[in-house]
Structure formats: structure tokens, C-alpha cells
């Protein structure tokens, strides 16, 4: 039974396509499968991966969050401003992450408590927060961040970069959470049928609130990683970030209509894109054709998945 499920899953398809790509890239370039390069790819995935934990839950509930990038932007601004205004590094980081949580909770209040559709709330927040980030920065970028503030991006534990640790730990915990904690299950329940969940005695407002607030927290962590890695806070940090996160999530098998999906799938989705864009540079494929190849491969791997499960419904 379980085996049948795994074989049918999008996760497996995406995983297999990725393995295929990895084999192909390693055969074409001996520099691909090196510790260094694997680290590069994982680092590249980390911020998107952490954010996709929150996004996956949101999309499973049948919602969407296009304000992820803007929240990340405000997190970066807060962190940068705090650090350059004499706050200790650890406090700046925590402050940044808490701002993420707070903004997630604002989304959550509008959506869960007032019942405004998520697309409207998050589109609105996206626009509004962009303007705020710009205003807080006074249009000026923050460079030369003190080294300690960049710990979330540059730090290492046991010689493994902190962002990679964070990604692995968070993904592992929340995968467990989604399967074994009642709250995790309620998230699926809400996405399958809000009415059924309500009638089964699930406090649906609480679940929705939790999901959007938690996503904010994840964007906060992702923001601290991005600032740490880039070392610069731009007025438009996080631009287009939401699209990458949504893409990874949906590519990994989470249904945009809600009700199904896994966090592992989303990580695989973001890895697939990262492996591709890294591999194409290693093969020195002309830059302008990159989009063409990425687009065709994404479409192709999902088409395989759809055809594989033909005749199911």
C-alpha cells in the first residue's frame, strides 16, 4: 500500500529526474560532484527551502502567500538596521526573525480572523511591505555588515555551513510534524474541506492563523540566511523570492488547489531548479538559453508524472 503510494508520488518523479540530471552533469563535468559544489548547491537552496516549509503548509490549506519576498525584505532591513545601529549581532538576528513572525501574524489575522481571501491579503501586503522596506532604508542599501551578524549565512558547525544545518533540521522536524502531530493533520484537513474540518470540531481559524504565522517565522529565518550570505541589504532584497518558493513547492507536488503535498517534495522541487542552474553554468551552456532548458525540463518532468499516473482518476 505505502509502496504504491510512493511510486505514484510526484516526489519520486522529481527525485528521479534530479538523479538523472546529477548523473548527466557528473558525466559531463568532473567538477560537478565535488564536496564544494554540493555545498554550493545546498547553500543556494537553503533560503528557498526554509521558506518553502511555510509555503507548503499554506498551499496545502488551499491558500497562497505572495508576500513571502516582501516579508523577507523587511526582515533583511530590520536585521541590517539593527546591526548597524549598535545592536548586538544575536539580538539583531532574533529581531529580524521576530519581525518575520509578526508580519506573518498580520497576514494570519486578516486571513484567519477576518476571512479575507489569502490572495488579496498577501498581494496587498506584498505591495505595502515593498514600499515600507524602501522607506525604512531611505532608499539606501546597507553594506559592510559586521561579520557576526552574518553568522546565519556564513557560520559553520562541524565544518558544515549553518544554512545547511538549518534547512536539514527544519525540514526533518516539520516533515515529522505534518505526519505525526495532530496539528499537522489538521492542516491537511482544512485544505481538503474547511467545512468538514469545522464540523469535525477542528478549530479552523486557529489552524489558518498558525500556518500563516509560522510561514512568517520561516521567511524570517530565510531572511537571516539571505542577509548573512549576501552581506548587503538592498531596497529590493527578496524581489521575486515568492515566485521561486511557490514554484519549488508546486513542482514538488503540492496541489495549488490545496489538500495534498509534502515538505520533502518542496525541497526536492527547489533542489531540482538549483541543480539545473548550477549544472548549466558548469557545462557553460550559453546563458541566454538557460531559461529555455529550465522551462522545458520542469514541464517535462511534471508531464512524465502526469502521464505516469494516467488512468488513475
Amino acid at each position: 500500500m505505502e509502496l504504491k503510494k510512493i511510486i505514484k508520488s510526484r516526489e519520486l518523479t522529481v527525485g528521479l529526474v534530479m538523479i538523472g540530471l546529477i548523473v548527466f552533469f557528473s558525466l559531463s563535468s568532473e567538477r560537478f560532484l565535488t564536496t564544494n559544489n554540493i555545498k554550493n548547491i545546498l547553500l543556494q537552496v537553503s533560503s528557498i527551502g526554509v521558506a518553502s516549509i511555510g509555503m507548503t503548509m499554506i498551499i496545502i490549506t488551499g491558500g497562497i502567500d505572495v508576500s513571502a519576498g516582501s516579508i523577507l525584505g523587511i526582515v533583511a532591513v530590520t536585521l541590517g538596521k539593527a546591526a548597524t545601529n549598535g545592536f548586538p549581532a544575536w539580538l539583531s538576528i532574533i529581531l529580524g526573525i521576530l519581525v518575520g513572525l509578526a508580519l506573518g501574524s498580520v497576514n494570519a489575522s486578516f486571513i484567519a480572523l477576518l476571512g479575507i481571501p489569502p490572495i488579496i491579503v498577501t498581494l496587498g501586503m506584498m505591495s505595502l511591505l515593498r514600499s515600507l522596506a524602501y522607506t525604512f532604508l531611505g532608499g539606501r542599501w546597507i553594506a559592510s555588515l559586521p561579520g557576526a551578524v552574518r553568522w546565519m549565512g556564513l557560520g559553520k558547525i562541524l565544518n558544515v555551513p549553518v544554512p545547511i544545518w538549518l534547512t536539514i533540521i527544519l525540514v526533518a522536524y516539520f516533515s515529522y510534524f505534518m505526519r505525526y502531530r495532530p496539528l499537522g493533520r489538521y492542516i491537511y484537513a482544512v485544505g481538503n474541506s474547511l467545512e468538514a474540518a469545522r464540523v469535525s470540531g477542528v478549530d479552523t481559524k486557529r489552524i489558518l492563523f498558525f500556518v500563516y504565522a509560522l510561514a512568517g517565522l520561516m521567511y524570517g529565518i530565510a531572511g537571516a540566511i539571505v542577509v548573512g550570505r549576501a552581506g548587503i541589504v538592498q531596497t529590493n532584497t527578496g524581489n521575486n523570492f515568492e515566485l521561486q518558493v511557490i514554484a519549488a513547492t508546486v513542482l514538488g507536488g503540492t496541489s495549488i488547489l490545496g489538500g495534498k503535498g509534502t515538505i520533502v517534495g518542496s525541497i526536492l522541487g527547489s533542489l531540482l531548479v538549483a541543480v539545473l542552474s548550477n549544472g548549466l553554468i558548469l557545462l557553460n551552456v550559453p546563458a541566454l538559453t538557460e531559461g529555455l532548458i529550465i522551462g522545458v525540463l520542469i514541464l517535462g518532468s511534471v508531464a512524465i508524472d502526469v502521464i505516469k499516473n494516467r488512468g488513475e482518476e
Partner: protein
Amino acid sequence: MMKKFLKLMAVNRSFFLFVFLIGMFVVFSFIIPEFSTIYNVLNMTKYGVEIGLLAFAETLIIISGGGGIDLSIGSILSLSAMVIGVLAGRLGVNIVIASILGIITGGLCGVVNGFFVSFLRIPPLIVTLSTMYVYDSLALLIAVDKWGNPMPVSNFPYGYYFIGQQTYFNIPFQVIAIFIPLALMLHFVLSKTTFGRYLVATGNSEVVARFSSVPVRRVKFTVYVIGGFLAGLAALIMTSRIASARPDLGAGLNLQAITIAVLGGTNIMGGEGSILGTLMAIVVITALYNGLQLAGISSIWQVGTLGIILIGSAIANIILSKKFSSVE
């Protein structure tokens, strides 16, 4: 009377936006002397045209439901524009033929999207995200000049410019001759015809529609193709207006078009929405941007204001409908 008015505002999105628009006009007219001049009002209309066409496309596509959305619509615009530009400007093809081929390119892009969405049944978000990459990449590739860099094309024959630059009594040609007739036509199709019924049915529930002998696949396919053509047409108008074809012409327009459709009352879950609502949203946003710019407010706060309006109008709507829609 007042109650009836407020109730209409609660249930009818277009009316709500209309009232909002009037309010905005009054406020802007008071604080900005140039705003309510006939010249300005007519002049600003042209800035709603291209994004408006894209928003109409998104409206139809989102109504088709099942996560219907087109993230590639801006990229189709870029690619169509480049086709027109390269054919007419670099290869010397007759401008009329180049324009037609450009619009057809848009339609073909829509065919590709529609094929994957309706016949292979791949989620629209994934299809159009992928084709967004592909069309962008193609636009860049055909824009490459002899130095290997993608470069804009701008040597169009002079006659080409009437589409996007001509005005009659200050009314831009593209508004009166293309946009308004098209809006009327789409409104007619969506609200009065059998195709409109099929579209709404499909968007409400694909399964029920299938069981009701609605040609679900054909309907979905068709909206993506219409979307492609509209983007192609927008490309034509835009290249003519700015006298330049660029491979990044449509960048960032997807989300704007979706935002307008949503502001206009299109339900992102499908099955609900109107051309009239979207049209009102276009007018509101165009006037808003114009007013804010004339008021000298930094462009950064234009988007911010849009965000406030989006959430604010949703809250207003909830309050209004709580109060007024249930009482008979």
C-alpha cells in the same frame, strides 16, 4: 435608499469600484489642479490599455478554475514584441505582416499553454511558470545582435506608430479603436454567450461540468489561446507606443495583471469574475497611479497605496456584506 445603495456596493464589485473611483476623482481634483483636466483624463487612458488587455486575459483564465492562472502572459508579450521588432526592424519584413505574425506568435504561445493545461492536465501554475522561462529565453535569443547581446529593436517604419501614438481629440487611437471595442466584446462573450456559460461552469466545478456535457477541455484550451492573442495584441500596441521592441517588455506585468483581475472581483478559485469588474479595476489603478504621480508621491508608494486599497476594499466589502447583504 441609502441602504439599497450600500447593499449594491456590497454585492456588486463593479459598482463598489465605481463609487471608489468617483471618490478618488473628487479627492485628487481638490489637491491636484492638473488632475481633472480633460487633457489629463484622456491622456492617462493609454496607460491602462496594455496592462488592461493582460488583465482581461487573466480574468478569463482565472475564471476557468482549477488553479487557472497565466504567469507567462508578460513573457508572451515580450516574445511577440520581439517577433514584430526583429521581423520588421532587422529583417525588413513588411510591417503589417510582421505585426500579424507577432500577434499570431502570442496566440501560438497560448496554444502551447492551453495544450499542456487542458490536454495533458498539468497544473496551470507549473505550465505557465515553465513557459514563462521558455518564452523569456526565446525573446532574448531572437533579440541577439551581431555582438551576441540581446538588444532592443527600434527602427520601425513611421506609419507603424499611429497604433500607439495617434490621438483623436486627445483620445488615444488604441483606446477608442482597440481597447473599448475589445472590452465590450469580451464582456459580451463572458456574460451573454454559451461560451461564457461554459467557462463559468468549468470554473465552478470541472467534474460537474464534465458530467453536464460541457466541453471542458476545449473551454480551458480556448481561454489560454485568447490570453495569448490578447498578449500579442498588447505587444503590438506597446511596441508602437514606445517605438521599441525589447525582450523584457513584459517583465513584471504578470503579477500586476493578476492583481487587477483580483481587485476587480475575480475569484482566484475560479468560476467567478467579470470583465466589467476588471475594467473598473483598471480604471481605478490607472487613475490612482496618475494622481499619485501628479501629486509628486514617490513611485515607491504607488505600489504601497495599491496594497492598502486591495486590503482596504476587501475589509470594506466584508463589513458591507455583513451589514447589508443578508437582509432582504
